[in-house]
């Protein structure tokens, strides 16, 4: 059946050679998803596999994981690829040897659907993996008959709805029904995975061919988490930022980073031992303290990003002592004190919007005015070791950008960075004038934490002056 093969990708040309070959193919699969798997890691994996019993699939998987996946993010990708790879490998082999799963129990038409619903809900509460898998098959037999839409995701959702499985409470059900208080989200997700697999297995059996490999999406890849974790992630990245900035001073000193003997103190200490310098005194190492000036746009055009920006600002305040922060719309207003006083982010955010007193007549950003005021206020404090960070979208609303004043600021400060919450695609469209500022500073697009990490990397790259 050539046409079917053309659609579904067919089988790999050759049957699996040896076990080693199959593992290497797995490594190749991991690499194609962007994980760095080195030869030395594979060697370790083989060494380690020689030591364990293979009866337990979880031991096998953990062994591979511990030797190959070396960060939580990698581990996440590893789990997904492991699942995909070995499922496909097993199915391909099954098709080759024409093994097929026995059709699900006869007489499924007479299944008591309501009982099945409750049984599945119960299993979701406390069931084991294999029980979930069996029930997924039953569910497909009962609800997934015939009229498959051809799109797995759609079928999965249709069956889930037919089963009445929801995470939110369903008060109209009897109170001893597990669905009464809503089902645990994680369990439901696992059940959906089982459904998807069983549907896929059925499809492969019918067509005798493997569907094309589905690359991982960004959604799969990202670690599960909500807005709370986002805030934590920002704090984590900023903590890294501080560490890198703090150690930067050492790096720049190059060969001089060894301790210097403090002759005066050594001689003084030697008086105790009759003039023999038994105790060496060293000059203390003083890491350079970076000084930060942060300007944050809080106007309406960046409303969606301003929570993110404020949390960045908040996190920065957590780790830097010498930092002055300003928020601006038409004029600037210093908020350093608010952030120093309020340890809680939510309280700080409300305090900023309440007391900051951003003189805000039109609600439109006036960058030219902001630069002039900023320069007037802190001109005497800017010096080559200061770092200025601007958080804003560079939309001037048609007002003069006054890049000459901005250039003066950039020239006085050691380094100047611009974080723009808009995707690079939109830069310089409409009233965005980021390009006139970009010649005086380094501009980054920054609306996700991983971009913030990129910025941290760039910020802490050793500078050659």
């Amino acid at each position, binding site marked *: 059946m050539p046409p079917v093969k053309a659609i579904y990708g067919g089988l790999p040309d050759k049957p699996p050679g040896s076990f080693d070959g199959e593992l290497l193919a797995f490594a190749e699969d991991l690499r194609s998803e962007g994980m*760095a798997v*080195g030869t*030395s*890691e594979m060697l*370790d994996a083989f*060494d*380690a596999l020689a*030591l*364990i*019993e293979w009866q337990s699939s*979880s*031991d096998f998987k*953990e*062994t591979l*994981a*511990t*030797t190959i*996946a*070396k*960060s*939580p993010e990698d*581990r996440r990708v590893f789990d997904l690829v492991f699942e995909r790879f070995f499922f496909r490998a097993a199915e391909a082999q099954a098709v080759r040897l024409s093994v097929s799963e026995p059709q699900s129990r006869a007489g499924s038409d007479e299944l008591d659907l309501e009982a099945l619903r409750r049984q599945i809900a119960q299993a979701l509460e406390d069931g084991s993996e294999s029980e979930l898998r069996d029930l997924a098959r039953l569910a497909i037999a009962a609800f997934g008959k015939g009229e498959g839409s051809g799109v797995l995701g759609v079928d999965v959702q249709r069956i889930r709805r037919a089963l009445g499985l929801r995470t939110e409470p369903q008060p109209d059900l009897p109170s001893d029904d597990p669905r009464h208080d809503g089902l645990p989200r994680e369990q439901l997700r696992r059940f959906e995975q089982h459904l998807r697999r069983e549907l896929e297995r059925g499809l492969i059996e019918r067509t005798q061919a493997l569907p094309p490999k589905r690359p991982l999406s960004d959604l799969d890849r990202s670690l599960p988490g909500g807005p*709370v974790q986002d*805030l*934590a992630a920002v704090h*984590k990245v900023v*903590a*890294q930022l501080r*560490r*890198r900035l*703090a*150690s930067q001073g*050492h790096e720049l000193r190059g060969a001089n980073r060894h301790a210097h003997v403090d002759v005066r103190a050594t001689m003084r200490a030697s008086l105790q031992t009759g003039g*023999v*310098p*038994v*105790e*060496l005194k060293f000059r203390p*190492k003083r890491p350079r303290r970076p000084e930060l000036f942060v300007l944050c746009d809080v106007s309406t055009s960046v409303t969606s990003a301003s929570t993110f920006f404020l949390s960045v600002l908040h996190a920065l305040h957590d780790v830097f002592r010498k930092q002055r922060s300003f928020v601006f719309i038409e004029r600037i207003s210093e908020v350093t004190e608010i952030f120093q006083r309020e*340890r*809680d982010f939510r309280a700080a955010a409300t305090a900023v919007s309440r007391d900051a007193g951003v003189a805000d007549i039109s609600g439109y950003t006036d960058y030219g005015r902001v630069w002039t005021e900023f320069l007037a206020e802190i001109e005497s404090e800017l010096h080559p070791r200061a770092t200025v960070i601007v958080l804003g979208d560079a939309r001037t609303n048609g007002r003069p950008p006054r890049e000459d004043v901005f250039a003066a600021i950039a020239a006085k400060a050691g380094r100047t960075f611009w974080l723009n919450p808009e995707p690079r695609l939109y830069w310089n469209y409409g009233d965005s004038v980021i390009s006139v500022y970009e010649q005086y500073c380094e501009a980054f697009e920054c609306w996700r934490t991983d971009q913030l990490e990129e910025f941290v990397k760039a910020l802490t790259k050793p500078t050659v002056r």
Partner: protein
Amino acid sequence: MAENPISVQDVAEGLQSVGYLPGESTALVSFLAAKLGKPVLVEGPAGVGKTELAKALAKYLGRELVRLQCYEGLDEAKALYEWNYRKQLLRIQAEVGGTGWDEVQDDIFGEEFLLARPLMTAIASKQPVVLLIDEIDKTDQEFEAMLLELLSDFQITIPELGRIEATTHPVVILTSNNSRELTEALKRRCLYLWLDYPELEHELQIVRMHTPELPETVARKLVDVIRMVRELDLKKSPSIAESIDWARALLLLGAREIDQDVFRQTLSVIIKHRTDLDIVAERVGVKLEPASAA
């Protein structure tokens, strides 16, 4: 003590016998570490028992634990070895005039004048040891680079003496709180273990193991509450050690039930920030039963 574990099951039981309840992958990775002789990099949030794992392993394997606590600015002199400068000076003074320069020079850079620091101790030890390099993420990248030779070949090069090779194979555990990315080179040389907060049942077992006298119902409730607290956005989430502390505190107070009163009184055992205290009292405290009238 089992010198040489033969199976993962062995290690799991062994660790349990010294008071550490390993998760499935923990036992497996420990087993592989002992067998392959590769260092293990353990990462995870603070207080999930990373350091405890090293201690338990040392106890189980019957080895001495050599610990290097890392901090910002740690250098070779504190981690590897240092020349005992004072002793060298005294030596030179004692010999004044008597011997020639060459002789003294050979003499003062001998092993006698070497101050062994933790890494050196671990390498040179006659008995195999467990080496714990704690919070590696606190050091600078340069220090990591220095570790590479030690971790892959178990040897140290001292310019004046030459190479010192390990006579026995230490089990090396590195821990990190993930406050910065470690270099690829370091990761490549290690097995990787991610320790997270344990599953509910697992944590219950841990608590029961440390405070067997605590009534089961209270222990279960305690673990439940801890779980709820961890889901909040806190400055510092309660660790396993703090669950155990809490269990002990409840035991001392003779609590039969965790109600709002008990919770309020003992909250400070698990929560260590003032702002966190407010959040937890507000979000979790109210879900508990009000104190019984008695």
